[in-house]
């Protein structure tokens, strides 16, 4: 078990399943014996806005929030959100990015354009792992499992393969969605 505190920042857009993913990860870490803190965003920011959860784990964790330049892994469920939060990633950290665009209000109303070349820009700055999680989830039959497709690449990047992630998925999703999510997890495992 590692002693120093590890920091995982999950970012995306409200409704992408970020809070559930964080729950699956943090409860599994607790069961594996780590001290864990996790910070969420509620209220007005949830209405289609940019959403983050922050997970910190180690022997003893104090602050529930991650500082700039401190995340070991930044996992972005949406491309532009990776740009917004990249300054929180350690320069030698890992970016896991879902190759998926969600337009924000200024783009929808034609006041701005969705920036091109995001992944190319990010790849020049930091170690980047690109996962087409939304595309895979749609192919698997439910876009809502995009979060679970990203789980295996993330946990592998953190060196947490020894944790029983399938068990944590079973404990945190509703019974009728378990099979669908396990399928998504296994697909994520295949490609990571």
């Amino acid at each position, binding site marked *: 078990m590692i002693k120093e505190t590890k920091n995982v920042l999950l970012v995306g*857009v409200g409704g992408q399943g970020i809070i559930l993913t964080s729950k699956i990860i*943090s*409860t599994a870490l*607790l069961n594996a014996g780590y*001290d*864990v*803190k*996790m*910070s*969420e*965003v*509620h*209220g*007005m*920011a*949830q*209405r*289609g*806005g*940019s959403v983050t959860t922050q997970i910190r784990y180690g022997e003893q*964790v*104090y*602050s*529930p*929030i991650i*500082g*700039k*330049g*401190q995340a070991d892994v930044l996992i972005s469920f949406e491309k*532009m*959100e990776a*740009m*917004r939060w*990249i*300054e*929180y*990633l*350690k*320069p030698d950290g890992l970016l896991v990015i879902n190759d998926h665009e969600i*337009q*924000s*209000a*200024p*783009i*929808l*109303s*034609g*006041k*701005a*354009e*969705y*920036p091109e*070349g*995001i992944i190319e*820009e*990010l790849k020049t*700055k*930091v170690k980047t792992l690109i996962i087409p999680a939304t595309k895979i989830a749609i192919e698997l039959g439910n*876009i809502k499992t995009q979060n679970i497709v990203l789980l295996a690449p993330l946990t592998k990047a953190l060196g947490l393969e020894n944790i029983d992630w399938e068990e944590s998925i079973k404990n945190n999703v509703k019974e009728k969605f378990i099979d669908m999510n396990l399928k998504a997890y296994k697909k994520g495992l295949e490609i990571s």
Partner: protein
Amino acid sequence: MKVLMTGNEATARGAYEAGVTFASAYPGTPSTEILENLANYKEVYSEWTPNEKVAIEVGVGASIAGARSLSAMKHVGLNVAADPMFTYAYLGVNGGYVIVTADDPGLHSSQNEQDNRYYARHAKMPLIEPSNSQEAKDFLKEAYKISERFDVPVLFRLTTRICHSKSVVELEERKEVEKKPYKRNISKFVATPAACRKHHVELEEKLKKLEDFSSNDTWLNREEINNSEIGIITSGISYEYAKEIFGNEASYLKLGMSFPIPKEKIKNFSSKVKKLYVIEENEPFLETEIKAMGINVIGKEKIPLTGELNPDIIAEKLLGKENKKISVNPEMIVPRPPTLCSGCPHRGLFFELSKRKNAVITGDIGCYTLGSADPLNAMDTVICMGAGISAAHGFSKVFEKSGEEKEIFGIVGDSTFFHSGITSLIDIVYNKSKVISIILDNRVTGMTGHQENPGTGYTLMGEKTEEIDIEAIVKAVGIKHVKTVDPNKLDEVRSAINEFTVLEEPSVIITKWPCALKKLREEEKQKYKIKTVRYQVNHEKCKKCKMCLKVGCPSISFDKNVGSIIDINTCVGCSVCAQVCPFDAIEKAGV
């Protein structure tokens, strides 16, 4: 058993374990989940009240009746509830009583970042500040002991990062506490001037004893001596941030009970270290007290007073350290502000209001504050709960006198109307202005995450109850012109507005349609005839005029080659865009 809990869940658990039997609250971020979680413990009677003042008043009643009771609210809610709180501090308790205030440094979801620690001093109540979920649970249990031992209500202060951060909590069993017997006690509980003159003297005596307790007799305030170079006095979440940066390289005086301030303990601690910092978020609450004691301390000259504190700020301001960061081209980051959801029933109303160029629209607190955002921009003011209606009356009276001909609309949500809009509407009738008040009844308290309210027909604990009829209230206070409309039907909204803007008397429009995110009961599905149609753009008819973009729906995007595009996965079929399209290019999908 160890579990991960948010500060709010842990506070609820603490109340449960402490033997609390009565809890009341009005929902408000970041406090809402305290009562939502308490309602899961059947041993505790929990209720949503119409507003925070009522929450404290019923809590006080329960406490005088002999129960351990709790009331919870967000920081600005305590402004509404301050009146009974101040007086109850004078009277003292029967069953232990704790008021939980959840402050919002950084304004994640609030209109200010007031520091409610000052309320403890102002109302003369002990103040308890946990730093994490375990402490939220344990300290709350201690708060009840303090309340009953010293015969005072206790203020229990959380902040957003404590409320909404999960950390490890060791659960314990509930300990039933026998209800205190109730006997009529006029000299204690009837707040006459004569009684309260005495109560004030007694309260000052209690505060002296509490200060002694705070310094010498409570585990809530503790020293961690690691070295004699740097000492840090801190409380709440700031303690965790300070530990994150200084670790064991500093000594700490961690204050779990920060009012009455433990002067002796502070004096003693300050003598043990060479350099003394006070690390606190927002106001210099501790610092001012410590400086008044003649102790030299570094605080707000380094740590900012505004905004949310974090470990980075402490490292930078006190140690001059800054982490290396990755920077990218900032032009490649487009803002992602919150928006009204796809199918939000507020959209139709605000679209119609956005077209009225001679209007003043006073808004209120709720999702509908987003009516002020691009592209609708249909709002002039937002102040506080209730002001949506009352501020409109002020506008109306001034314009009446100055001769400015304006259409004045006052906006309020259903829960906000029950909270403090009713008295505002009475003022409009009583003092005769011709404001058009619009009550946005989306059948739920939306912004805070879908709580029941007096208009939904259900209680916090899930019981069916009287569904309070907004239209009947409006008529009962003397409004003669009332129309209830479906806000998804733009012509209905428009004709109600046109009819009422020419009146010389006050009027009310009620827009009634459930929140698009609400999990509907069967009865609601039938009542509102919820259909599952979706809409799509017929690109042969689309002239790329962008009219549909003016409703600001997150399901509609625009491609300059093909025109508007509706995302069929997120469209909920409200049809507002189809009604707006001048070329009938938006059609039901699959037709």
